[in-house]
Each structure stands twice: as structure tokens, then as C-alpha cells.
């Protein structure tokens, strides 16, 4: 099989360009005759638009056009944006008009668009667009918004609860009735924004004679942008090309399709000149989706050994003013239950509540951290109340290695049973318990205590559905030069996808990764694609490349067998050649084979073979493959100031086969830091009137290098039986249990005060208040 590059720490093929200023992000794109746009955004959280006066803005020299929704024409004035994720539970119009029609529902909603010669002039003019608002009552507090008497977040609604999503299996009522132990707890979780370092941006260019619309957008899903843009504009997809250039981080919010993308494309067609719009960071805080609060009231039933027999509860999720990604966030904040645990019955309901704040959608981890937090706090609670070891209670509850494939009892909406394909949660737990951080902790804790310092250790385990369907695809083509080209629909935002695909292909075809180039993220380069989200493309695109490369390999061998007059079993692929085992005189090259199959006038294609040394494969996925792991966090809590320092961090991580361990470790470390930010720093705050209070990096804190310890990582590889590589996704595992581990550690540090921490982010004030309330 010759596995040489897969599994190795291969340097990334993307890097030479990115290291030398050769990155081409959307703001780096310059087209002849290009104009720049800026958006006028609502300063009101909820209001009717009484009038918009654009006359002064239009008069500014250098302004080309000013658009409000009515300038889109009568057809578009009635047309809300498409809903890319419809759901039977979503019964009302849940998307915006781009720009707003007659009602604004969050600060930051687009109301008008100014197009000018450059951004500076556009912003000058934008400040001269006068909008008359009639304020309406705004609601931002999640629990208040969920009450029947709350003001409506949107006049179209009958109530603020957009949908009530259930997730249940087994008979909870009976289990709770007979349980020996029942514990209750409530949680408040806040996530914050994705905050990729590159904000969003769009460049749209319409060539009228050929009617080709080309859109560059900083997106995780060029194919969905193409589909819905074409649908909205009434165009053929074949005349609508969408390109994701270099994307400076995605993390979830860039899979949403935004009003600005539609508006800029529309306007570019109207004015007949390319338009560029780049989001600035202030806009990003209010106009890019984020996650905010989920509140839970949960109950767990357990036996005397700490085995959980049933779990039930209810949650409210802050949906924001619109649902541009349907109910996906609600699903991902619910369906990960019961996690890595064998829980016989479950009944959880999550209400999605609309508020007058920026719309919410999944941010790295995508609701799975929320579920992990609930499960891990409950496990810790059971352990504490039953006076048992936290690790052992996890072990008692884990799905065991010999129980895979394991059906949890839950069923997906399409009736398919949720089944964990493979895993070894105990192995990850054991690695964590054998780590030096864990084994030496008690000695450090005692020594610190003698110095008046408080150290704590937290444990958190999780599993994660990765590699979700339906598919990705790839074409693998040997070119006449002998170099290999991969074309795929999958898009990258920094994960190193091109490198990993090159490694997979290189092994199949006996070439070097540096001989393989990748075209990705461009709807013109490959016919179909889905999206880079939910830790799925290594599985989906990686497997497609594997399958296509295998077909190419078979074709090369079949052709070479005829040319060299040697039977197929005697042939081997290495160094770009096809040679004969044991006979170094007979060989041909992939380049020669490619040239033969590329055809010459009048010469027939060799019998039994189709043209081109290439193949296309779509890896079809029917079920996700489950990654998992255990994290250990060590913190120091200053009981006077409430400050928390993360001193040590350990991850035992199982993502199946490691395609490139260096890249996987990078994903894990990056993911853990999102989790640390989540646990201790990041909060998107709105006041009671819906005004955002944290709209810059002085007010909204992101982790910097000094907040982060060295993150120790060890791997368990339980291969996935669901794809030829045995790989599972790795993009989000670092984040999923991190907040739970850190909060558990904080509580452990304050164990002698018996505080219980049930919300995050954990601020210094919160810790001081918790300590004070225990003292009094």
C-alpha cells in the first residue's frame, strides 16, 4: 500500500505564499473599474423605518449610487432572503430583507448601501444618509423574551419562541420515579463571536455581454452562496461563479450567507461595475453571526454507583433577531446529548427565542460545547453528591469499547438511529489520568496552598459527531507533465486542506506531495460541493481524493500493463513512474500515460479505457463518525481578585487516523484556546434597550499568548469504519470540553469553600461574589 506521507508531519504546501505576503484574501482582490461599498446600519435595536433620505449622500463627489431596498425594484422589495436550512418546526419567515424593508430588528441591520469610488468616500456619504426611525420595544434578555407577555422582537411574529425542539428517547418519567438519586442544576452559558482575524468581505463583478456574475466572498461555503445567490437573483448557477479566495479563518459564522453578499451582487449587476465591500471589525461585532446565551434547567437520575439512568431538562437558546441558518444551532446544541455516556433515557427540549440582537449561528464547536458543559457539570455534581471520584464516575458511565457500534436510543429526524461508530473513551480518560499534570497535581496543590495560593484541576470528556454528510467530491488528474492536479469543492479557511489532500493523493499515486497541486473553493473548478463546517472535510474531501486517486491508480496500471506487456500484479507506482517489480528495464511514467490518454487526432483511446488519466469521486456519507477525548485543565484562582490563570492543559484526543499530526495538533491547540476564551474572557454584551456594549477588542476580550499555557496533546486512534482512510474530524475537539474542564478546575480550586460554578464566562467579579456569598 505504500503509506508514506499520510501520517507524517508534512510541511504545508500553502505556506510559502502566505509567509511572504502572497496571500490573496478578498480585500486583496483588485479589478479594473472597481468601486467600493459601505453599509448604513441600524442604530436602533427595534424600530419601524419611517423614511430614508439619501439625497445628501448622493450629492457627495465620487458617490456612484445609494441603494435602499426599494431601489432593488418591486420584485425584490417583497422578497426575503432564502432560508438555506428550512425545517418543519420553523413556521414563520425567518430571514431578512437585504437591506431592511420597513422594520429593523437589531443594531447593525443593513438599511442602505453606498457605492463610491473608494471606501473613504463611501463612508463620508454614508454618514449623510438620514433615517427616521420610530422606536419599538426591544427585548434582549433571553428569559424575558421567552415569556408570553414579552414585547415581540419582530412584528411578523406571534411570539418570540421561534421553535421548540425536542430530543428524547426511552422512558424518563419511569426512570426518575424509581431512581435512588435525583439531582437538579441550572446553567447559563455564553459563547460569543467567531472573531476570525479576517472579517467578511465580498467582491462582485458582472460581465454583461456574457452574463457571467463572479463573486469572491470570504465564505466557508462557495456552493451554497452560488445556489442561493442564483436563486435570489433569478439566474442560472452555471452563469454564477463563486470563489472563496484565501479565507482568514471561518469558525462557523462564515457559512451563513449574508444580506451584504446578496446586496453587493445585485448592485454590481445594476451599476455595471465591480463592487468590493469589506467588513470592518466594528461591523463584525454587530453584523456577523455569533452565539450568545443558552440557559438550561436540568435534572439527572443516578444510582448509588453514580451511573446515570436518566437525564431531562429544558433550555432557552438566544436566536437573535433572525435565523439565517435555520434551526441548525438549536440542533447542534441538543443532539450531542448523551455525549460519550450510555444513558438509557433522555428528554430535553430547547426553545429557540428571538431577541433584538445580532442573529446567532454556530461558532466553533457549534453547540456541542454547550452540551458537553451540561453533561460534564452534571457528572461532577453526581460525583460530588455521592462522594465518588470524578474520573471513576465518568468511567462508569462511558460507552465501553466493546459496545461499538453503539446506538444511543435517539433517532435523527429522518428516523435513522444515532449510532456511535467507533471509539475508546476510557483510553482517552486513562491517558489523561496518567499525564504528569494529573499525577503530580496533588503535590503542586499542597505546596501552593502553603504559599496561600489556590490551585484546581478539572476533567472533562466528550465525543463529537464529525464528517457529516451528504458528500464532498474530488477530481484527481495526472497532467501531461506528470504533475497531479486535484480539484475539489471543499474550501479551506486555514486548516491546511490542500496539504492533507496532497498527502493522500501522493501515497496512492507514488508521487511527492510537492508534485500535487490543489484547486479548491471555486465553483468553476468543480461541479458540486457542500461546506467546510462541523469538522467534516478531512473525512469528506479526503475520502473523495482517496477514492478518485485509487481509480487513477487502477487506470494507470491497466494502461501500463498493456504498454509494457506485463500483468497488472507485477506493476508498482513510485516516483512518478510505473515500473515492474524485479525488472528495472521496463517502466513508463505517469506523464507518458497521461499524454496517451489525453489523445491525439485520429488515434483511438486504448481499448477498455476512457480518456484522461483522471477520475472523479464523490464520497457519500450516510452517518457521521465520532471523535472523542478527555481534557485536563489546571488553574490558579486568586481569591482576592478573582483572577484565574490557566497553568497547564492536557488533551487526550481521538480523531481516528492522523493524516498529518502536525496539523491535527495545531487544530487542537487552536480549539482549546477558543475554549479558554469562552470560559474566561469572551462576552458579547447588550444593554436592556438592545444596544451592543462590546464592539471593540478593548471591551470584548480575546485570548492572547500570555493567557495560554503550553497545551500537551496525546492521541488515541480508533479508526473510523465508515471511510477508507479511517479518519475522523479534528477541527473542533479542542473547544468542545474546554470550558467545562476550566470551570471544573475553578470549582476544584475553591473546593474548601464548596462553591458551585454553573455559568461561563467566569469573570473575576463572579468568583469574588461566589466566595463572598459562601463566606456570609
Amino acid at each position, binding site marked *: 500500500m505504500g503509506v508514506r506521507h499520510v501520517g507524517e508531519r508534512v510541511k*504545508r504546501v500553502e505556506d510559502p505564499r502566505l509567509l511572504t505576503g502572497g*496571500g490573496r484574501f478578498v480585500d486583496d482582490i483588485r479589478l479594473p473599474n472597481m468601486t467600493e461599498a459601505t453599509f448604513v446600519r441600524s442604530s436602533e435595536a427595534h424600530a419601524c423605518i419611517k423614511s430614508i433620505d439619501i439625497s445628501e449622500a448622493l450629492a457627495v463627489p465620487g458617490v456612484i449610487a445609494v441603494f435602499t431596498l426599494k431601489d432593488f425594484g418591486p420584485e425584490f422589495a417583497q422578497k426575503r432572503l432564502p432560508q438555506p436550512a428550512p425545517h418543519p418546526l420553523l413556521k414563520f419567515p425567518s430571514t431578512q430583507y437585504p437591506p431592511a424593508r420597513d422594520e429593523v430588528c437589531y443594531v447593525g441591520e443593513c438599511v442602505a448601501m453606498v457605492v463610491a469610488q473608494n471606501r*473613504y468616500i463611501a463612508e463620508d456619504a454614508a454618514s449623510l444618509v438620514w433615517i427616521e426611525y420610530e422606536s419599538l420595544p426591544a427585548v434582549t434578555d433571553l428569559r424575558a423574551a421567552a415569556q408570553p407577555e414579552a414585547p415581540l422582537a419582530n412584528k411578523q411574529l406571534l411570539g418570540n419562541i421561534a421553535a421548540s425542539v425536542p430530543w428524547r428517547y426511552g422512558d424518563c418519567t419511569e426512570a426518575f420515579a424509581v431512581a435512588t438519586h435525583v439531582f437538579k442544576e441550572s446553567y447559563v452559558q455564553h459563547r460569543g463571536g467567531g472573531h476570525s482575524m479576517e472579517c467578511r468581505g465580498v467582491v462582485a463583478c458582472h460581465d454583461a455581454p456574457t452574463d457571467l456574475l463572479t463573486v469572491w466572498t470570504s465564505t466557508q461555503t462557495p456552493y451554497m452562496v452560488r445556489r442561493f445567490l442564483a436563486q435570489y437573483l433569478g439566474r442560472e448557477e452555471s452563469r454564477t461563479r463563486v470563489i472563496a479566495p484565501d479565507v482568514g*479563518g471561518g469558525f462557523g459564522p462564515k457559512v451563513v450567507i449574508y444580506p451584504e453578499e446578496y446586496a453587493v451582487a445585485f448592485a454590481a449587476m445594476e451599476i455595471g461595475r465591480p463592487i468590493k465591500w469589506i467588513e470592518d471589525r466594528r461591523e463584525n461585532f454587530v453584523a456577523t453571526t455569533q452565539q450568545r446565551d443558552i440557559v438550561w434547567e436540568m435534572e439527572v437520575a443516578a444510582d448509588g454507583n453514580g451511573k446515570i439512568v436518566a437525564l431531562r431538562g429544558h433550555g432557552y437558546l438566544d436566536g437573535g433577531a433572525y435565523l439565517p441558518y435555520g434551526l441548525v444551532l438549536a440542533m447542534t446544541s441538543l443532539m450531542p446529548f448523551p455525549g460519550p455516556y450510555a444513558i438509557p433515557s433522555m428528554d430535553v427540549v430547547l426553545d429557540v427565542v428571538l431577541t433584538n440582537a445580532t442573529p446567532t449561528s454556530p461558532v466553533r464547536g457549534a453547540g456541542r460545547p454547550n452540551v458537553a458543559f451540561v453533561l460534564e457539570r452534571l457528572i461532577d455534581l453526581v460525583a460530588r453528591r455521592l462522594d465518588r471520584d470524578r474520573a471513576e464516575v465518568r468511567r462508569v458511565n462511558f460507552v465501553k469499547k466493546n459496545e461499538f457500534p453503539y446506538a444511543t436510543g435517539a433517532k435523527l429526524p429522518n428516523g435513522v438511529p444515532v449510532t456511535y461508530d467507533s471509539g475508546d473513551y476510557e483510553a482517552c480518560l486513562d491517558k489523561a489520568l496518567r499525564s504528569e499534570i494529573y499525577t503530580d497535581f496533588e503535590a503542586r496543590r499542597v505546596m501552593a496552598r502553603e504559599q496561600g495560593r489556590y490551585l484546581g484541576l478539572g476533567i472533562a470528556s466528550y465525543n463529537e459527531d464529525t464528517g457529516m454528510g451528504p458528500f464532498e467530491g474530488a477530481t484527481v488528474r495526472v497532467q501531461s507533465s506528470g504533475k497531479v492536479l486535484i480539484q475539489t469543492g471543499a474550501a479551506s479557511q486555514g486548516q491546511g486542506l490542500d496539504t492533507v489532500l496532497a498527502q493522500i493523493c501522493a501515497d496512492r499515486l507514488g508521487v511527492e506531495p510537492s508534485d500535487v497541486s490543489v484547486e479548491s473553493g471555486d465553483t468553476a473548478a468543480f461541479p458540486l460541493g457542500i461546506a467546510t463546517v462541523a469538522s467534516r472535510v478531512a473525512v469528506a474531501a479526503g475520502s473523495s481524493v482517496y477514492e478518485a486517486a485509487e481509480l487513477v491508480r487502477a487506470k494507470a496500471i491497466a494502461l501500463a500493463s498493456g504498454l509494457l506487456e506485463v500483468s497488472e500484479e507485477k506493476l508498482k507506482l513510485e516516483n512518478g513512474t510505473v515500473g515492474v517489480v524485479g525488472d528495472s528495464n521496463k517502466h513508463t511514467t505517469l506523464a507518458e500515460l497521461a499524454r496517451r490518454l489525453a489523445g491525439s487526432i485520429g488515434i483511438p483511446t486504448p481499448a477498455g479505457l476512457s480518456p484522461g488519466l483522471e477520475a472523479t469521486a464523490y464520497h457519500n456519507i450516510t452517518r457521521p463518525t465520532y471523535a472523542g477525548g478527555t481534557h485536563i485543565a489546571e488553574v490558579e484562582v486568586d481569591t482576592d481578585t478573582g483572577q484565574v490563570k490557566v497553568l497547564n492543559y492536557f488533551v487526550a484526543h481521538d480523531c481516528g487516523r492522523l493524516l498529518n499530526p502536525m496539523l491535527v495538533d*495545531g487544530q487542537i*491547540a487552536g480549539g482549546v484556546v477558543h475554549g479558554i476564551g469562552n470560559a474566561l474572557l469572551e462576552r458579547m454584551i447588550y444593554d436592556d434597550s438592545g444596544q451592543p456594549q462590546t464592539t471593540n477588542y478593548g471591551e470584548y476580550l*480575546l485570548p*492572547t499568548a500570555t493567557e*495560554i499555557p*503550553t497545551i500537551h496533546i496525546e492521541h488515541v486512534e480508533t479508526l473510523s469504519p465508515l471511510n477508507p482512510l479511517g479518519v475522523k474530524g479534528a477541527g473542533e475537539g479542542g473547544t468542545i470540553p474546554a470550558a467545562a474542564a476550566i470551570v471544573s478546575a475553578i470549582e476544584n480550586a475553591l473546593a474548601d469553600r464548596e462553591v458551585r460554578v454553573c455559568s461561563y464566562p467566569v469573570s473575576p467579579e463572579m468568583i469574588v461574589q461566589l466566595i463572598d456569598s459562601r463566606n456570609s
Partner: protein
Amino acid sequence: MPDIRKITLTVNGTEHTRDVETRTHLADFLRRELGLVGTHLGCEHGVCGACTVMLDGEAIRSCILLAVQADGCEVTTVEGLASRGGGLHPVQQAFWEKHGLQCGFCTPGMMISIAAWLKESPNPRAAEIREAISGNICRCTGYQNIVTAALDAAEILRREG
């Protein structure tokens, strides 16, 4: 009427004389006027560090410096980090070998900050490097490999003298 001044500055060894609006910041001047798009804008309020360039050898945030303030100065951007012969600067090489970048957006500013700082602190410890880059936000890497890369680059620079 926009306020226009003539400025002359040397960028990556090449002198440029241009008329600029006084309100144009240095990052926009480098990107738009000179086409040097390697310097990126992450926040435009001086916190994230993605826009970091060297001004007369010191790392500064080009999003909160006006282009007119750079009149008469020498600027080094990521495009000018590598040696004239085309090889990579040790910081660039170390970032490549140690996987110190993922999306690449914060990377130019991060490398400039490190390259400038290593001139003053040629023999750093990891904790000092973390302090030195605490003004550069990375959302992808978790900083771990950036620190490793900086340590490696420091060693190479010490060897090269």
C-alpha cells in the same frame, strides 16, 4: 476638499513619493497605493496587531498611524522580510517548519513583531516570547507553534550572528 500632502518614504528598500490624503492610514497606503497587500487589517483600532510593520526598525501598528506620519521613514513589510537573494527570513522559515500559521491572516504582523523584537532580545525564553507577541492576536493556532517557531528563529539568528 480633501487635504493632500506629498510624502516620500522608503518601503522595503525602494523609495516612493506620493500625494496622499492626510486621513489615509499607513496600512491603507501600503495596500492601496503601493499594492503591498501582505499587511492585513484585522481591527483598525490598534489591538489585534495584524497590521504590524517596521518603521525605522521598530514594530508599529500601521492602522493607527497616518501615512503622512511615515514621511521620511523606512518601512519594512512582510514582503521585505526575506533577504534580497530570495531566501526566507529565519522567522519565516521557522514558521513554515513549525506550523506557526494556519489561515495566514495574522501572520505577517506576527512575524514582523517577532523579527523586530528578536533584534533586541536574541536569547529569549518562551514566556518572554509570549509577552512580546501579546499584542498580536491569533485566532487559529493557539499560539503554541508560534512560540516554538520564534525560539527556533532566535537560535538560527544567533548562529548566523
